[in-house]
C-alpha cells in the first residue's frame, strides 16, 4: 500500500515534470533588443522607430552600423546599400564614374554588359522590394488609426513605397507588385507592366500629396515638396516609361511650380549641399541621412568621400573625360575635379588604373566652414536625393519639351540662379534662347551634368535624351572600348535578377535578356 502510494506519487511527479517541460517549448525572445510583432506596438514610441526604419531602408544596410545585421544578403553588405547600389546603377553605367576594382561584376556596368545574375543588379532589386515590404508592413500596422500623427506617418510610408517603386519603374520596368494587402508569407507576387506601375505610383502620390507635411516641416521626412518632385520626375520621364507620345510635361510643370513656390531656396554656395553639415542647406528637398556616429554604413556618401581617387582614399571612383570635358569654363565653381596636380590623368586607358580619370571632390566630409565633420571613418554628409537645383533644370526641360504652365524666361532665370549663386563667383548668364530647340535640350543635359553630377541622376537623364544606349553619345569605355561604342537599346532597362526569376515563376524577363 505504502509503496503503491509512493509509486503513484513518483509517477505523478514525473508526469508533471514532463508536461511542464513540454510547456518549455513555447518561447519568446529574451533578448533585450528584440520584441515580437504581436507586442511591439504596445509601446507608442515604436511607431516612429518603425517609420525611421522605412526611411533608413534607403540609407543604411542593416540594424548594426556600419555592418553586421544586414537587411538583405547574398551580396556584400556595403555594396548592397540602397543608396549605393542605386548610385552605381545610375552613375557607373554612364560617363560620370568608373570604379577601379573588378568586384561584384561591377565592370559590367561600365561596359553596359550586365547579366541577370550580376550581384549589384540583384542587390538593387532586393533593396527596392525590401523597402516596399517594410512600408507595406508599416502601412498595415498604422491603417485606420484615428491618431493624426500616425496617419501622417502612414502617408509618409506610402510616399517611401512610391519612391522605391519609382526606382523599380525606372531601373527594371516590370516589377513584382505587392501592397499592404499582401502579408509576408510563401506566395508568388504577380508582375505588373511598367505602365501599370506608373499609374499606381501616380495615384498613390496624388492621393497622399496634400496630406503630407508642409515643406521643411521636419528635416529628413517626406513633405509635400518631395511628393511633387517625385511626381514631376514621373511626368518628365513619362515618354520613356509609357512610350513616345505620352507627354506629361504640363503635369510636370504643375508639380515643379509647387516646388519652386515652396519654402525651399538655393543655398548661397554650391558645395553647401555636399558637406558634413549639408542638413543645414536650404536647398535639399529630400535627403538620405548619414551620421558619422549614429548612422554608419558603407553607403554612397561614405564611398564617394573615402573611395574617391586623388584624395588618398581607396581610389575607386573616377570620372571619365565624358564628364570632365563638360566643364569648359575654367572658373566653373562646380568643377571639383582632382586633376593632374593630385596625380590623376584625364584619360582612362584601363578601368582598373586608379590614377586614370579625374577624381571628383564634390562630396566632402568637412563642414561648410572647413572644419572636420567627424574624425571616424564615416561621414556626416547626407545624400541629396532631391534638391531645388534639380527642380529648376527639370522646369527648363519641361518647358522646352512643350509643357504648359511655364515659360522660357522663368526657365532662364532658374538656370541663371544656379550659375550665379550669391556666395560664388558668378558664371556667365544665359538667355532664354539658349534653352530652346534641340540645342536647348543639349545645353540642359550638359548643364544637368555640370550641376547634378554624382547625384544619381545621370542614367535616367541620358535615357530620356536618347543617349544612354545606341551611338548618339559615346563616352570612354561605353560598350567596353576605350573610346566607347554603340550598345543595344534593350539595356535601357536592367534585367529582372536571376535570383528573383528563379524564385518567382510569375516574373517574365525584360526584352532582350
Amino acid at each position, binding site marked *: 500500500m505504502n509503496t503503491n502510494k509512493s509509486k503513484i506519487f513518483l509517477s505523478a511527479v514525473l508526469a508533471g515534470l*514532463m508536461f511542464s*517541460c*513540454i510547456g*518549455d*517549448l*513555447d*518561447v519568446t*525572445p*529574451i533578448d*533585450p533588443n528584440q520584441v*515580437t510583432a*504581436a507586442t*511591439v506596438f504596445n509601446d507608442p514610441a*515604436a511607431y516612429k*522607430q518603425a517609420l*525611421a*526604419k522605412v526611411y533608413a531602408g534607403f*540609407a543604411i544596410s542593416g*540594424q*548594426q*552600423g556600419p555592418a*553586421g545585421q544586414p537587411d*538583405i544578403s547574398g*551580396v556584400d553588405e556595403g*555594396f548592397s546599400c540602397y543608396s549605393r547600389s542605386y548610385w552605381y546603377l545610375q552613375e557607373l553605367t554612364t560617363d560620370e564614374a568608373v570604379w577601379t*576594382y*573588378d568586384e*561584384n*561584376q561591377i565592370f*559590367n556596368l561600365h561596359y553596359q*554588359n550586365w547579366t541577370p*545574375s550580376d550581384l549589384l543588379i540583384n542587390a538593387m*532589386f532586393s533593396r*527596392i*522590394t*525590401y523597402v516596399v*515590404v*517594410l512600408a507595406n*508592413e508599416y502601412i498595415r500596422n498604422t491603417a485606420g488609426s484615428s491618431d493624426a500623427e500616425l496617419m501622417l506617418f502612414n502617408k509618409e510610408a506610402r510616399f517611401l513605397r512610391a519612391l522605391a517603386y519609382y526606382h523599380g519603374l525606372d531601373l527594371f520596368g516590370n516589377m513584382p*507588385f505587392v501592397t499592404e494587402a499582401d502579408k*509576408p*508569407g510563401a*506566395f508568388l*507576387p504577380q508582375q505588373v507592366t511598367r505602365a501599370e506601375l506608373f499609374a499606381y505610383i501616380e495615384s498613390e502620390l496624388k492621393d497622399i500629396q496634400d496630406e503630407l507635411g508642409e515643406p521643411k516641416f*521636419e*528635416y*529628413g*521626412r517626406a513633405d509635400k515638396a518631395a511628393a511633387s518632385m517625385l511626381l514631376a520626375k514621373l511626368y518628365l520621364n513619362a515618354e520613356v516609361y509609357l512610350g513616345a507620345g505620352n507627354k506629361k510635361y504640363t503635369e510636370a510643370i504643375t508639380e515643379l511650380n509647387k516646388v519652386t513656390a515652396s519654402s525651399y531656396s538655393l543655398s548661397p554656395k554650391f558645395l553647401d549641399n555636399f558637406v558634413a553639415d549639408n542638413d543645414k542647406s536650404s536647398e535639399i528637398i529630400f535627403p538620405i541621412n548619414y*551620421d558619422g556616429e*549614429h*548612422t*554608419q554604413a558603407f553607403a554612397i556618401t561614405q564611398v564617394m568621400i573615402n573611395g574617391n581617387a586623388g584624395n*588618398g582614399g*581607396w581610389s575607386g571612383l573616377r570620372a571619365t573625360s565624358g564628364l570632365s570635358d563638360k566643364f569648359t569654363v575654367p572658373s566653373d565653381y562646380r568643377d571639383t575635379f582632382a586633376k593632374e596636380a593630385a596625380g590623376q590623368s584625364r584619360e582612362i586607358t584601363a578601368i582598373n588604373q586608379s590614377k586614370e580619370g579625374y577624381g571628383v571632390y564634390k562630396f566632402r566630409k568637412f563642414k561648410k566652414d572647413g572644419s572636420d565633420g567627424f574624425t*571616424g571613418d564615416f561621414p556626416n554628409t547626407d545624400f541629396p536625393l532631391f534638391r531645388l537645383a534639380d527642380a529648376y533644370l527639370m522646369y527648363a526641360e519641361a518647358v522646352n519639351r512643350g509643357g504648359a504652365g511655364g515659360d522660357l524666361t522663368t526657365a532662364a532665370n532658374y538656370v541663371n540662379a544656379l550659375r550665379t549663386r550669391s556666395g560664388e563667383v558668378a558664371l556667365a548668364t544665359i538667355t532664354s534662347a539658349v534653352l530652346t530647340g534641340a540645342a536647348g535640350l543639349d545645353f540642359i543635359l550638359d548643364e544637368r551634368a555640370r550641376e547634378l553630377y554624382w547625384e544619381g541622376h545621370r542614367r535616367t537623364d541620358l535615357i530620356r535624351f536618347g543617349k544612354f544606349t545606341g551611338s548618339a553619345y559615346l563616352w570612354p569605355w561605353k560598350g*567596353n572600348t576605350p573610346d566607347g561604342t554603340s550598345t543595344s537599346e534593350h539595356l535601357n532597362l536592367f534585367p529582372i535578377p536571376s*535570383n528573383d*526569376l*528563379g*524564385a518567382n515563376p510569375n516574373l517574365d524577363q525584360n526584352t532582350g535578356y
Partner: protein
Amino acid sequence: MMKLYLLSKKVFILVFLFSGYIAMAQSNKVTGRVTSGDDGTTLPGVSILEKGTTNGTVTDSDGQFSINVRPDATLVFSFVGYTSQEVAVAGRSTIDLTLLNDITSLNEVLVVGYGEVQKKDATGAIVNISSKDFNKGVLTSPQDLMLGKIAGVAITSNSGAPGANSTIRIRGGSSLSASNDPLIVIDGFPVDNVPASGDGSIAGVPNALASINPNDIETFTVLKDASATAIYGSRASNGVIIITTKKGKEGKPKFSYNATVSISSPIKNMDVFSGDQYRALITELAQTGISGLNPAAVADLGTASTDWQKQIYRDAVSQDHNISAAGAFKNVPYRISYGYTDQEGIVKTTGFQRNSLNVNLNPSLLNDNLKLNISAKGSIMENNFGPDGVIGNAISMDPTRPVMDGNTEYGGYYTRLNGGGLVNNSSTGNPVAMINQTDNTSKAKRFVGNFQAEYKLPFLPELKLVANAGIDQTTSDGHNYAPLDAGFTANTTGVTQGRKNDYSAKNQSQLLDLYFNYVKEMGDHKIDFTGGYGWQYFYRENYSFNRNFDETIINSAARTNKSENYLVSFFGRLNYTFKGKYLLTATLRDDGSSRFAKENRWGLFPSAAFAWKLKEENFLAGIEVLSDLKLRVGYGVTGQQNISNNPYPYLPIYVQSTPTGEYQLGYNLDGTARFYTTLRPGPYDPSIRWESTSTLNAGIDFGLFNNKITGSIEVYQRKTNDLINTIPIPGGTNFSNFLTTNVGNLENKGIELQLNATPIDTEDLTWKIGFNLARNVNKLTKLLLVKDPAYTGINAGFISGGVGNYVQNQQVGYPINSFWVHQQVYDDSGKPIEDLYVDRSGNGGTVSGNNLNRYHNQKPAASILMGINSRVNFKKFDFSFSGRISLNNYVYNNNLSSRGYYANLYKLDFFSNVPTAINDTKFNSAQYTSDYYVTNASFFKMDNISAGYSFNRVFTDKLRARISLTVQNAFVITKYNGIDPEVDGGIDNNIYPRSRSFLMGVNFTF
C-alpha cells in the same frame, strides 16, 4: 528464473574456488606481473587460467598475480581489449608478461545512446576507438586523437593556431545551411559542437572541445548510420560521437604522471620576393610601364631587405603535464586528474594554455543495486590569438622596408605614410608592429558536470531505472587591444585610432534524462528495451563593445544579445535477439524543439536494423578461415533543427538597431540632430519545420584467420529532405531577399571499408596494421521552390580579394560547394592568357563578366579518403605511425589569386609583395574567377610517427616508465603549390599554417 540465475552463479564460484584449492594442492607457485604493451602500465584484473583446467586467478591492482600450477602447465592470460597470450610455465616460478592490445577485439562493449551494447551484437554502423589506439602527441584538440582512424569520419583542423577548432564531417554532412557538425556526447551529456566563429560560436573559444584534456579520454564511439543515431533523433543527422572519459577501478590507487615537451616550427612559408629580387622586379617592370610602375615608383622603393614571414614566425616550445590518481576509496572508485598544457603557436605571441581538472566517481550502493556516476570536468583556457590578419600582411608587406625606422609617432615601427604625412591607411600594416602592439587574448572557463543514477529494482532486477542530470557551462571574456600609436589602426584620414574591443560570452546547457531499461531472456529470445524522456535547455549570451583606444570613438556600441531554446524528447529502443544470432533493433524518438511553431514542433524519427551473425550458422562452422561474419542492414530517419543562430525562425520579431544604426528625423529643441533607434521586422517562416534525413545502410563485419584480420564494409545512401536552406525568395514576400526555409533535397552515397590486421603476433614481436577507406558522393537534387532551368545557383565560397567575389555555388545536380569558375584559355606554352576565357554561353561580350560562362569545376571534398596506421611492438620498444590519403580534394588557391598580379604591386601608393608564382601567370590584373586557381590538392599526410620504450622498473618495482618520441605532421606529399593542401572548405587564404612538431614524452606510473 532470477533465483535460478543467482544460484548458478554461486555454484560457478564455488566450483571455481574449489578447483583453485585442488590446483594449489598439486603444484608449484608461479608469480609475476602483467603490464600493458601500450604504455607499460600494470594491468589489474587480467584473468590467468591454467589451460585445460578451471584453475585460475586475476591480477591485483598492481598487476601482480600468484598462481599454483603444474610445472608443465600452459597459462592463458586474457584481458578485455588485449590479445590473449598462452605462455608455457616450463618450470619457471616468475613470469612477467606484457599483454598487447587487441585492436580488433569483438568483445568490447560499445557505448551507444542511453545504454551500451556488445560489439558483436551491434546492428548499426558503429566504430569505436580507445585510448590505446589514439594518435600520439595530441595536446589540445581531442578530435585529433581519432584523426584518420575511422572510415567516413573526416577531421580537418581549421588552422594551425594553438587550440584551433577542427571541422568534423561524418559521411560528408547532410545539411546545406544548417549545421553539419555531428552531435558530441561526453559521458552521457550531449554537448553542441560549437563552431569556431560565426553563428552559434562562443566568442573567445575557438574550439569548445579543447576544454577536454585528451589524456582523460578513454574511448570515442562513432555512430554513423541512422539506426545507431536515431535514438538521438533531432540532432543525429550528422552522426554522433560519444566520448567516454577514464574512470577509476577497484583496487589500490594507481598514480600516473606524464609530461610532454615539444618544439614546433613552420613547415613552409609562402615564396615571395626578397628585398633585392623585389627591387629588380619593380625596376624591370617600370621600364615597360606596367601597372602604373614608372621611374617615380622605382625611386619610391626602400633600401632594406626584410623577410617579414621570418619576422613573425618562431620555433614554438610547448609543454604538457598530466597527473592522475585512480583507484577506490572504500567502496568508491575514483579517478582524479589534473592537466596543464602550455602550447605556443608558431606565430609570435600566439598561444593556448589550459588547466583542467577531471573527477569521476562511480560508487555502487545498496548491494550494487544503485550505481552512481558522478563526473565533473572543469577547465580554464587562455588563448592568445595574436593579431588578426598578420599572416597575410607578412606575405604582402613591402620587403624593401625595415622593421623599425626610428619614427616617434608609430612606436618606431616602419609605417607607410600618405602625401599628407599621415598613415596611408590602405597600406599593409607592419606585421611586427601588429605582433608587438596587439593584445588579443581571451580567457574561458568551462564546466561539464553530470550525475547519473542507475537503480536496479531489487524485486525486479531485469528493470533498471536511470536518471541523468547535468550542466555544461562555458563563460569567456576577451579583448583585442592596440595602443593609440599603432600605425595599423589608422582611419581613412590616416589618423591612428588604436583599438579597444571587449567581448564576453556565456553558454549554458542543462540536461535531464529519465529512462528505464528492461532485459529479459526467455529461451532463445532476448529482449532489451529502453524507454525514456529527455529534456535539454540551451542558453546563450554574448556581449561586445568596440571603440578606439582612448574610447572617444565608438565603432560598435556595447550590446548584449541573449537567446535560448529547448528540446524535449521521448524515446524508446528495442533490441530483440533470437538464438543469439538474429538481432533486431528498432528505435523511435519523438522530438520537440522550441525552434518551430506549435503545429510543426514535433518530429517523429524511427529506425530499424537487422543483423545476422552468419558465422554462428552451422553451414559456416566448418570454414576455419572465416572466424567471424555478420551482416547488417538498417534504415532510419533523423532530424535537424539547428538552424543558424535564430532560435525563433517561425516568429515575427522586431529588432532594434544598434546605436550606430540609428536614423535622423528632425532636430532636438537644442538644435542637435534627433536620432531614432529603428525597429526592423525580421524575416520569418511560420511553417519552418524539421529537416529530415533518411539513411539506408548495409554492412558486413568479418574476421579471418582467427580474427587476425577483421574488418567491415559499409554502403549507405542518405537522402535529406526538406533541407533547411537559406534561399532567395520572391521579392516582396518577406522581410529580406533570402529566407531560411525548408526547401531542397540533398543526397549522399558512399562506401566505407575498415580493415585491421595483425600479421605478426608473437611474444616478442607484434605488428598491427589498420586501414580505412571512405568514398562519399554528394549531390543536390533540389534547390528552389520552383524549378527554373536557367537558374545559375546560389553563390557560395566568397574569397578574399576585392569585395563580394565568389568561386563556388550550390546548384542542382552538383556536389555542395562546387567550384563555379570561368574556363581559362592557355597559350601554346601552357601559360594562362590574361582575361581570356572560353565563351561557354556563346553570348560573346566580356566573357569573364558573364556568369553564364562559368562552369562547375570540381569540389572541395575529397572523392576518397584513406587512413593508414600501424604499430609494431618489439620487446620493450614500440613504434607507430598514422597517416591519411586524400584523393581529388580540390583547392582554390586564393593566396595566389588575390595577390599574384602586377597591378597589386604598387596600388594606392604603397608596395605589396606578391608570391613568386606570379612568374607562372604574369597577370596584370586579378583573375579571381579563373579555373587556373582551382587545383587538385590530393595529398598523403603522415600525421604522426611515434616511437617509445618502456621500463618495467625504475629504481623500484613500483615505478614504471615509458619514454617516447613523436613527430606530428611529419611530412606531406602533394602536388598542390600552396602551403598546405588540407583546406577546410577548399578556399586557401591566409590560414595559420600547421606546424611540424617534435614531441618528447615521459610517463611514470606507480
